[in-house]
């Protein structure tokens, strides 16, 4: 078969490593609008729901029963269901309708109604809706911190760095379940070293997770998974009642909880009942709300590749985030699993949560490299930190983190690694050596760490889990070994646990260890001039990427002493004969001494003059003061040239060959790619100018095309040009110059 070279190249692009599939509603492989999705309806008799979404009460499954008794506000439902879905969609996108007005009505909407509302919205409208319906005013971010070695010093160091970068929550998990208490401990100590008030969790099996929380090792849990069909729920070994009870059990121990749901899980488990992913997610979310969870982690989560294989998948994932926020739930909006091989696609997908802002833009930004991520990837990871910081800076968007300096990172990592070393020593756990501390300080991944003997570690973990030692013992260990500040932060977490303020919707602790939640900092966005925008110090922090340089630094290396051999001798007159005028910019060889490409002005002059002389023409040097524009410099030179030919040369190295009868902005040859010009190019420019002056046939100088030059050097170009413009004297006529040098 005939093959297109282009199609062959496209076939090897990252995007074509993805799997794409056509919808199949019968298998639940459809993100929204399954032909089997029910129409919204509700019938209430004597304060009881007798029919919902086309299903009589006798046919209700456990989820329907839970939803009607715990999630639906029956006082509102009658009126709320009467309002057309499109009207809700319009209210969501309308900045003039405050979130409370919508939230009140949504409490009376059934799963099919919720699904029907978002059906009317495109992604831009959904993003407007999400910006308004998000429960906390200020967006935040969560980090994943794990490593395949399960090295305690590396976990602590990475957690500390994540805390310093601004993540409000840090989640870890285990490769070997028995490591759970140690991993939770390392994350606790690491985060509280980096910044007091970062919430932590260790994602493990439910009962073990609860035991870690009871021991005081974790402060939140988001492992409470729910599913949109009864059979999937039971396959997950839970019911809405068992999950709701678990939520209360966590809250009774002062632990913040968040449920987990997301499109695609039912289809993945083969029990989608022909329904669309979005409709099943609406059911999940009403279960989450009914169970009394303050929030949810949704946005397809670990199933993300499944909706992304289908048309409209990324839109549906945004729709589920929006649905959750409409229900008043804190949303930790996914972006936590590898969603694409293509960096274009993964970033485009992120924008749908990043631009409107969610309570947690990632429910796990991989603050470690992907290969160390035990959650299965992370759509963005530690190697994308700088990219992410720049995205925040580009759009003036608070993505929940800030740039940090390398020295700050090293300091905090060392401190955290030493703190966990001290706790291990004080609690008589297998020693962490100074070499391990040093490695964790500079490490990027597990690969940079020495191995540990796992057997004694696991045995110690079992003992630690079994005995009574809790965070009182940990605080004492920290106090005894000079980590009083870290102990104080853990103690304040204990006090906060007593106050229980952080169990309220979307609660986090800010940089001052103050709780911020939907209660004391509710989202109040109603269009321009309202709600949250990063300003003041926060905007300064986001701007201050270490890569940003002071503008003066771009020009300094190009400044120099005036060329002693280049002397201005008087007003320039019109010349005669076959001369070439070399017209210099006002700063050339004076305020500036090098081109943008680093070539000495003196060498450039010599090269051009050599070229002119080699062709047998005469050169005359003229300084232009009234303009810094390359075309103007060249054109004025041409009008003064006896042959009508001149070379215009700016200090940054941009050159033009001009002819007096051409329009000022036209030219014979233009060399705008000054960074690519070499000494031999300048000589060639001299040669060609001379040939034009002598009337010889001339082949234009070929210059290598470097499309990246402008991208790399535009700031320097602008600042060098500005420096030259500083030297402009509008009333100064061109001056004749003498260059005390003769070509060979």
């Amino acid at each position, binding site marked *: 078969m005939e093959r297109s070279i282009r199609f062959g190249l496209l076939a090897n692009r990252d995007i074509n490593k993805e799997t794409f599939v056509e919808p199949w509603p019968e298998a639940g492989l459809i993100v929204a609008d399954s032909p089997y999705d029910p129409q919204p309806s509700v019938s209430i008799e004597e304060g009881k729901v007798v029919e919902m979404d086309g299903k009589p009460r006798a046919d209700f*499954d*456990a989820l329907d*029963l839970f939803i009607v008794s*715990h*999630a639906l*506000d029956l006082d509102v439902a009658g009126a709320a269901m009467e309002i057309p879905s499109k009207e809700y969609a319009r209210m969501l996108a309308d900045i003039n309708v405050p979130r*409370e007005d919508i*939230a*009140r009505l949504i409490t009376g909407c059934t799963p099919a109604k919720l699904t029907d509302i978002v059906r009317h919205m495109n992604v831009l409208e959904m993003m407007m809706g999400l910006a308004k319906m998000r429960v906390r005013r200020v967006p935040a971010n969560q980090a994943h911190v794990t490593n395949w070695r399960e090295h305690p010093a590396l976990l602590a160091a990475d957690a500390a760095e994540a805390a310093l970068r601004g993540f409000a929550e840090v989640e870890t998990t285990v490769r070997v379940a028995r490591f759970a208490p140690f991993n939770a401990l390392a994350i606790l100590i690491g985060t509280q070293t980096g910044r007091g008030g970062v919430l932590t969790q260790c994602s493990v099996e*439910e*009962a073990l997770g*609860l*035991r870690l929380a009871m*021991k*005081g090792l974790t402060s939140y849990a988001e492992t409470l998974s729910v599913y949109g069909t*009864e059979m999937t729920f*039971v396959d997950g*070994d*839970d*019911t809405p*009642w*068992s999950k*709701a*009870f*678990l939520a*209360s*059990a*966590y*809250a*009774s*121990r*002062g632990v913040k909880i968040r449920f987990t749901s997301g499109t695609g899980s039912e289809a993945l488990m083969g029990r989608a009942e022909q329904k669309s992913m979005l409709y099943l997610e609406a059911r999940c979310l009403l279960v989450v*709300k*009914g*169970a*009394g*969870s303050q929030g949810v982690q949704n946005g397809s989560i670990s199933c993300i590749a499944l909706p992304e294989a289908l048309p409209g998948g990324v839109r549906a994932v945004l729709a589920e985030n929006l649905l959750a926020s409409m229900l*008043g739930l804190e949303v930790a909006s996914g972006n936590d699993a590898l969603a694409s091989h293509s960096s274009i696609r993964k970033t485009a997908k992120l924008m749908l949560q990043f631009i409107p802002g969610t309570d947690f833009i990632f429910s796990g930004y991989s603050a470690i490299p992907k290969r160390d991520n035990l959650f299965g990837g992370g759509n963005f990871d530690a190697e994308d930190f700088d990219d992410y910081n720049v995205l925040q800076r580009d759009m003036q968007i608070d993505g929940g983190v800030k740039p940090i300096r390398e020295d700050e990172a090293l300091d905090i990592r060392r401190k955290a690694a030493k703190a966990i070393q001290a706790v291990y020593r004080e609690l008589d756990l297998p020693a962490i050596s100074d070499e391990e501390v040093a490695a964790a300080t500079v490490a990027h991944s597990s690969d940079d760490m020495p191995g540990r003997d796992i057997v004694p570690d696991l045995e110690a973990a079992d003992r630690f889990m079994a005995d*009574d030692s*809790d*965070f*009182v013992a940990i605080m*004492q260990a920290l*106090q005894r070994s000079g980590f*009083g500040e870290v*102990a*104080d932060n853990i*103690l304040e977490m*204990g*006090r906060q646990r*007593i*106050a*229980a*303020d952080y169990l*309220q*919707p979307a609660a986090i602790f800010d940089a001052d260890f103050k*709780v911020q939640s*939907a*209660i*004391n900092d509710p989202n109040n966005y109603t269009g321009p001039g309202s709600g949250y925008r990063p300003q003041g110090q926060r905007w300064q922090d986001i701007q201050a990427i270490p890569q940003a340089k002071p503008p003066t630094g771009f020009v300094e290396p190009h400044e120099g002493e005036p060329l002693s051999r280049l002397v201005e001798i008087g007003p320039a007159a019109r010349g005669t004969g076959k001369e070439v005028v070399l017209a210099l910019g006002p700063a050339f060889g004076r305020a500036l001494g090098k081109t943008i490409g680093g070539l000495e002005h003196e060498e450039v002059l010599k090269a051009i003059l050599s070229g002119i002389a080699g062709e047998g023409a005469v050169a005359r040097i003229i300084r232009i003061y009234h303009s810094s524009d390359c075309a103007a410099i060249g054109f004025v030179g041409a009008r003064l040239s006896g042959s009508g030919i001149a070379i215009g040369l700016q200090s940054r190295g941009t050159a033009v060959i001009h002819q007096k009868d051409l329009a000022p902005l036209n030219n014979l040859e233009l060399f705008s790619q000054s960074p690519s010009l070499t000494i031999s190019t300048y000589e060639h420019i001299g040669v060609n100018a001379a040939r034009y002056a002598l009337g010889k046939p001339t082949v234009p100088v070929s210059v290598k095309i470097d499309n990246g030059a402008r991208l790399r050097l535009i700031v320097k170009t602008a600042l060098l040009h500005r420096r030259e413009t500083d030297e402009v004297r509008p009333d100064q006529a061109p001056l004749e110059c003498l260059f005390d040098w003769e070509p060979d």
Partner: protein
Amino acid sequence: MHEKPGGKYPLRDNAAGDLRSYSERPLSEITAEAVAKGELSGDDLRTHADALRQQARIARDAGYPQLAGNFSRAAELTSVPNDELLKIYELLRPERATHEELTRLADYLESTYGASENAAFIREAAETYRERNLLRR
């Protein structure tokens, strides 16, 4: 004086004087010195039912009735020991308990811990499990 919703929130800042731990120790005694002297135990850093009840009121006033219900049930569960909590959760999972076992569990929670809201919740689960075939066979 009429208080606005969430008037005392955050309690950590606005009601610190009223806060005490599960062990009835006032927040003012939860200090680094007390930790260093070994005066504190785990229960001194656990949440008291009263704080959860206050959070329930705050949540209800702010328009989060289901969350308030969760906090009320949690308040009742503060006095239920860890092991029992884990057992109750296990019994509520699918096909773990008979209707009678769940009913007995509800009665026990109500009589032993005064946990009437949890009891009602578990009785409702028992009914639904029977209806949906989620009881132990």
